[in-house]
């Protein structure tokens, strides 16, 4: 087993100072692995990922307990900007592209956030275009006018522009056609294989997440309930029914 790179240690989080969303979640993400974070609607996946990037305060939330360590260092109170500089890069739920900016400008913002120079920006831009040729074709289109799949690719590409070491993806499959989902997961798996990129991936689509992940964790109502190799979890048919909002019995009509 490779070494831990991102560790959540009994993390508690709440919104508006009162509504508790995480009740002591622990999770270890290992270097160069794909870890799937599974759970039904409202389980706390987004909250956990935002906690990792210290983005909760911007949405009236906060970490109320526990520690988050990145490469062995306590980063619980680092700013979002500092996280990016250290290579811990989020891709937000719902893509959140800058709709009034072109695709290429969207990508460039990712590199600016990391503080790259012009020459470096041009270089990573080519790498991202190699990975997502569709983005190159649409480079001058306003992001708001591109398809959902293209926007997801742009959001991922924008994250890649920051040269991530650990990539935090929140539901990259959301609202996309199955073929596009496969294309995106194939690209992520390739990045993981070829560059050793570590990925923590929140998903409702447990089937596809377990197929590509090495390791998986299930959370329910802000608590960790299951943790293990992705293949083990995939083999257990009851998991979907119990924790992932699937129907326990086939519905008979």
């Amino acid at each position, binding site marked *: 087993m490779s070494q831990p790179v991102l560790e959540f240690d009994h993390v508690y989080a709440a919104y508006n100072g009162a509504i508790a969303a995480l009740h002591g979640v622990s999770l270890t993400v290992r270097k160069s692995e794909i870890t799937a974070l599974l759970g039904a609607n409202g389980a706390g996946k987004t909250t956990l990922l935002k906690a990792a990037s210290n983005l909760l305060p911007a949405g009236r939330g906060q970490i109320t307990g526990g520690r988050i360590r990145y490469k062995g260092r306590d980063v619980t109170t680092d700013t979002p900007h500092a996280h990016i500089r250290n290579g811990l890069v989020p891709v937000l739920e719902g893509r959140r592209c800058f709709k009034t900016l072109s695709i290429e400008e969207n990508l460039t913002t990712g590199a600016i956030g990391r503080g790259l120079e012009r020459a470096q920006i041009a270089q990573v831009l080519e790498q991202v275009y190699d990975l997502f040729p569709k983005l190159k074709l649409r480079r001058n289109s306003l992001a708001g*006018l591109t398809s959902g799949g293209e926007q997801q690719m742009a959001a991922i590409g924008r994250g890649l522009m920051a040269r991530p070491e650990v990539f935090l993806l929140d539901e990259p499959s959301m609202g996309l056609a199955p073929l596009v989902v496969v294309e995106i997961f194939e690209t992520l798996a390739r990045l993981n294989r070829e560059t050793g990129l570590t990925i923590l991936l929140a998903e409702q689509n447990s089937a596809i997440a377990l197929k590509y992940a090495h390791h998986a964790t299930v959370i329910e109502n802000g608590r960790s309930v299951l943790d293990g190799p992705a293949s083990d979890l995939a083999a257990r048919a009851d998991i979907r029914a119990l924790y992932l909002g699937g129907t326990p019995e086939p519905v008979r009509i």
Partner: protein
Amino acid sequence: MDWFGFLFLIEVTIGGLLSGVMYALVAIGFVLIYKTSGVLNFAQGAMVLFAALTFVSLVEAGVPFVLALLISAAIMVALGFAIERTVLRPLANRSPMTLFMATLGLSYIIEGAAQIIWGTEVHRLDLGISNAPFQVAGVFISTFDLVAAAIAGVLVAGLTAFFRWTRTGLAFRAVADDQFAALAVGLRLDRTWATVWAAAGIVALVAGLLWGARLGVQFSLSLIVLKALPVLVLGGFDSVLGAIVAGLAIGATEKLAEVYLGPFVGGGIEGWFAYVVALLVLLIRPSGLFGQKLVERF
């Protein structure tokens, strides 16, 4: 309408358009800040006054023109940074109403400070631009208005180039588009805000000099926010282009109304006509002519 009537119409329209440029100049200061932070900066007028007073006082104290200009610009940039630091950053994530009230308070503080530092009398400001009108094909045009329009034009072109071609400008547009996403991407909101307040300070300086040269530097200068409001309603609070077009439109309609409708209602239309136009626009297009065009597929 006879030939002279027609020439007169052209003359009034051009005069109106040129003074509209000056309205646009004040409105742009608002737009910059509103776009990035959602704050309706009521203190923009006070900043215009403060900038003009600073410059005039320096010149009156014997500081050479160019040096006074540079010092005033530096002071306005510093003021912008200070406001972002002491007012906006502590109030980040608060409601727009809270922020608006904060800038309202701020405008009194800035005006008060200006009064304490520079005194209350009216200052004459001479920028060395001729006031004599010149004639083109029978139409009289004010030299001062034309030069003022040119200066405003250069300023707008400069700002546009800055926001389009520089990395700081790109960060600005990203923050204006989606603040949370910008934060997540690692852009520093506080830096963007500081830059924008500094830019608004420079815009205030230019507006203050031009308006001050026209009306004299006095406390009523801060009331030009009231001239900018209808421009913002018409053009949309978040569009620089909107501010320019609306400034021109309001400048021209206001002058035309004064000249052609004024005699029927006893004059003085200029003071309130812009508000009537703004009100009509509000009824038809609440987001203004250019405001918040959503870029989205349906």
